[in-house]
């Protein structure tokens, strides 16, 4: 096993990976940008190396600097986390060249699966069901129009190298197609250096159901069941759960086999995720493979008892999986909420700032993968995720209750968070009924405003805080540490 691993990431996922490393006796190397000198992952690591200035291209996306940091620190392997370089084949290649282990699949596999059309080709051969659509990119407007007619509107324009909703457009009718293609192509060219686009049929009200897969270098591939991630804002998941309320054991079996087939067809080694869309009739379609550890991996860990990071490290160290498919089972129900520093009432506007107060939830079945601490400044340069709250319980309703309890005791002050929205989602009848589709937020929560149910108490708390904090707080004139009578007597009058 490696004795030292560099984590080429920041925030909660870097901390998550470090925890497993520490448990395995592996030393950790954090890397960071100038904006992150006081970030939690830097403070937590055994060693921390500065990469460069705040812009990601000069720090967390700077492959030469990361390789140099690994060499200089004597790390034997690099874990890329998620985001940043996790799905960039160039890092995997650079690791290979430098003689470092890359904790993830091979560069070739990442590259193939990173191209949506190439991936569709591979899956077609493996007989994994595909969303009806094109198998190759196209830049000819007439050809696009013909293809769209064939698929039937609405269609989805997608970037071949896309992700996170960028370079993607829903087109309702033929009159909008040309413009949508143009916009998507230019957006994709800007974001991914690749303006290639293609068309897929646009499924209505699908669910997002994904399967965790694990594959070792010895050729063993298993799936570790599904995660349902339909609750999304701006194409980013915010609430995930497992098991999916929509899957029957038969469907689970079928989709799991498809996921394993997909991984095998791609030559996949290490942990990955095969994403499907599931329509109301129970038909499922291949969406894409995420060649990395997912943000929502903890819910799989909670229901299977596995440590996916440990397994990633073992696979990268050429060890075989210590179990087969038949050894795996799901136990109970887990839900994850992503906690973002953002204002859900203002179109999810990021809310950077200093976390002036932090009270974290605890208790049985509650797990918090956090990347922040009280007094920490949430920087404006990166994704505003603060952490992930995971609740596990024997069944879905108990897990939901547990998550609500945890969210209501999760006080984060100094920045706005999406906690109030998460509470409302979890309390919504549609969620209770398991009616979760990818348009859930638009459908039930567009124009959402926070409930004012606690407003009276909040006003009271304001007044009491004024009373209890020595007043005149603007610039304490305390002479020797104790509040002066001016500060301690309150609204005293002669």
């Amino acid at each position, binding site marked *: 096993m490696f004795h030292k691993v560099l984590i080429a990431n920041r925030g909660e996922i870097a901390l998550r990976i470090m925890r497993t490393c520490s448990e395995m006796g592996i030393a950790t190397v954090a890397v960071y940008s100038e904006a992150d000198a006081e970030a939690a992952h830097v403070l937590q690591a055994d060693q921390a190396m500065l990469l460069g200035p705040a812009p990601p291209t000069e720090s967390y996306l700077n492959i030469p600097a990361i390789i140099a940091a690994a060499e200089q620190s004597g790390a034997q392997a690099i874990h890329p986390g998620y985001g940043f370089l996790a799905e960039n084949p160039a890092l995997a290649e650079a690791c290979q060249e430098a003689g470092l282990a890359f904790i993830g699949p091979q560069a070739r596999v990442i590259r193939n699966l990173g191209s949506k059309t190439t991936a569709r080709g591979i899956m077609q051969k493996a007989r994994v069901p595909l969303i009806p659509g094109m198998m190759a990119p196209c830049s000819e407007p007439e050809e696009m129009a013909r293809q769209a007619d064939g698929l039937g509107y609405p269609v989805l324009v997608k970037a071949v190298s896309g992700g996170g909703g960028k370079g993607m457009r829903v087109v309702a009718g033929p009159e909008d197609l040309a413009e949508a293609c143009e916009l998507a192509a230019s957006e994709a060219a800007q974001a991914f250096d690749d303006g290639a686009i293609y068309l897929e049929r646009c499924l209505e009200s699908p669910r997002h159901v994904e399967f965790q897969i694990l594959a070792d270098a010895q050729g063993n591939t298993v799936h570790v069941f599904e995660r349902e991630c339909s609750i999304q804002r701006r194409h980013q998941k915010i609430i995930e759960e497992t098991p999916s309320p929509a899957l029957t054991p038969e469907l689970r079996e079928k989709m799991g086999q498809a996921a394993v087939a997909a991984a095998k067809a791609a030559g996949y080694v290490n942990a990955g995720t095969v994403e499907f869309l599931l329509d109301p009739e129970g038909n499922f379609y291949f969406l894409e493979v995420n060649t990395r550890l997912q943000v929502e991996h903890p819910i799989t860990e909670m229901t299977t008892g596995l440590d996916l990071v440990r397994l990633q490290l073992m696979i990268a160290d050429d060890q075989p999986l210590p179990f087969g498919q038949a050894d795996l089972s799901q136990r109970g129900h887990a839900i994850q909420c992503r906690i973002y520093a953002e204002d859900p009432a203002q179109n999810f506007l990021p809310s950077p700032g200093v976390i002036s107060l932090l009270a974290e939830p605890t208790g049985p079945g509650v797990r918090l993968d956090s990347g922040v601490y009280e007094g920490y400044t949430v920087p404006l340069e990166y994704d505003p995720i603060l952490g992930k709250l995971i609740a596990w319980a024997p069944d879905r309703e108990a897990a939901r209750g547990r998550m609500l309890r945890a969210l209501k005791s999760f006080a984060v002050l100094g920045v706005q968070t999406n906690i109030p929205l998460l509470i409302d989602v979890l309390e919504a009848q549609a969620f209770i009924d398991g009616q979760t589709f990818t348009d859930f937020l638009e459908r039930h929560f567009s124009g959402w405003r926070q409930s004012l149910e606690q407003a009276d108490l909040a006003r009271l708390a304001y007044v009491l805080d*004024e*009373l209890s904090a020595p*007043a*005149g*707080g*603007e*610039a*304490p*004139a305390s*002479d*020797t540490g*104790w509040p*002066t*009578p*001016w*500060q*301690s*007597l*309150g*609204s*005293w*009058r*002669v």
Partner: protein
Amino acid sequence: MQVIESRINTGSQEYKDNFAHMAGVLDQLNQELAIARDQRSQRALQRAQEQNKLTVRQRLDLLLDRNTPFLELSPLAARGMYGGEIHGAGMVTGVGLVAGREVIIHANDQLIKGGTMYPVGVKKGLRAQSIAMENRLPLIYLVDSGGAFLPLQSEIFPDVDDGGRIFYNQAMISKMGIPQVCGVLGLCTAGGAYIPAMSDEVVQVKNTGAIFLGGPPLVKAATGEEVGNQELGGAEMHCRESGVSDYLAQDDAHCLELLREIVGNLPPNPKTDIGRIEPRPPLYDPEEIYGIVPPNLSTPYDVREVIARLVDGSQFLEFKSLYGPTLVTGWAHIHGYPVGILGNNGVLFSESALKATQFIQICDKRGIPLVFLQNISGYIIGAEYERGGITKNGQKMVNAVATASVPKFTVIIGASFGAGNYGMCGRAYAPRFLWMWPNAQIGVMGGEQAAKVLVTVKNDQLAREGQDPLPPQAVERIMEPIMEAAEKEGNAMYSTANLWDDGILDPAKTRDTLGLAISASLNAPLRDDRLGYGTFRM
């Protein structure tokens, strides 16, 4: 330090009677305070509303930090004078917190005769300036005044402590480096125009604030020029053209917000460290003072019972307890601040005066503030005592009190007669603050005593002329008016109306008042002339 063991029986009839009496006196006081605070003519209120002006109390609420004390000074000034309507002498002064900073505020009350200045108002304003200078407190003026009350101009204008002194003081305060900030929320006419002009920074309210040396009527009379308030001295003009004002405010609230910002922007003023310790409340409830103080000033009681209800933990290190027992001296803490306390337990004898002199000198050398609890009928008189040098020993005490340079605070808790007033740091001895309890009396001597002295003088005169002493009816005729006048002119209400003190205190609030005042006094460094005294007569 030893805890003072109270001997008060709160169940006794005497305690209950005393308590009931003091409660009654306080009720009266609170009624007077309420009248002074709230009684305003409907017309004035309406006019202020039409102009979109706030009342002076609303202005103070917005200016002061929320939920912080306001140590208002002389709220009953001018009570019973000028027809009895010039509440607080037409202005509010006091010490408070603004943006965390201890400051003194000087605010006109435009609801009383348009905020015009009466003689006692000038005195009250000058007193606020003295407090600013002695304690180095930034001064905030909220000006809304029609200028001098012209019918009384002869009492306001020319003398050393009249109107001109206000601007002289402003110059001296500025020279001392004490910030002065001015909000112009109404008229600043004639001399009044110099209040903003002589301040460091001026905020003027659009439409209502106006500054000019001569108002429109005067200009018209003098030159025939017809011009309006705003054109002549409005905020737009002074902020854009003349440079008389520095900040333009949209309305009163905005003006006060800006003043808060300006005070918040002042450089910090580290307070003098006199070795403060952690504050603790007294062991006994300060309200019990009501039951301790007898209605009649000549009924003796132990001043230690009062001290026990003023000081931290009721702990008191008594100095020279066996010597000169008619004066109690010793060390304690009030709100954590070390203090040296002198409290009367009877007439001052030579020994008590010598003890006071020594104690004051020690406190002065150590930089410990002095608190005087005055309840004194005077120095002892009589042949024996004159032979014992009571006058020269009294001289030593007066000398020490006058020249001690640590902050001094005086509370007249009972009688304040004769030279006792001087020796126990009366107004003329420059205590930083001086308050009276509502039961207190002040005068050259007690009314009955003064009347008897006059009867004796008359009888001596009659005896020299070989006539009979006065018959009882004649004695009564002489004594009654003197006693009546002494009673009227010697009570706390009369004193406070004339600004002989900084206000009448609820005895139960004495401790907090002293704590606030000591804290405020520490904005000034200890004076550097600490070591000097006048010659002590030996």
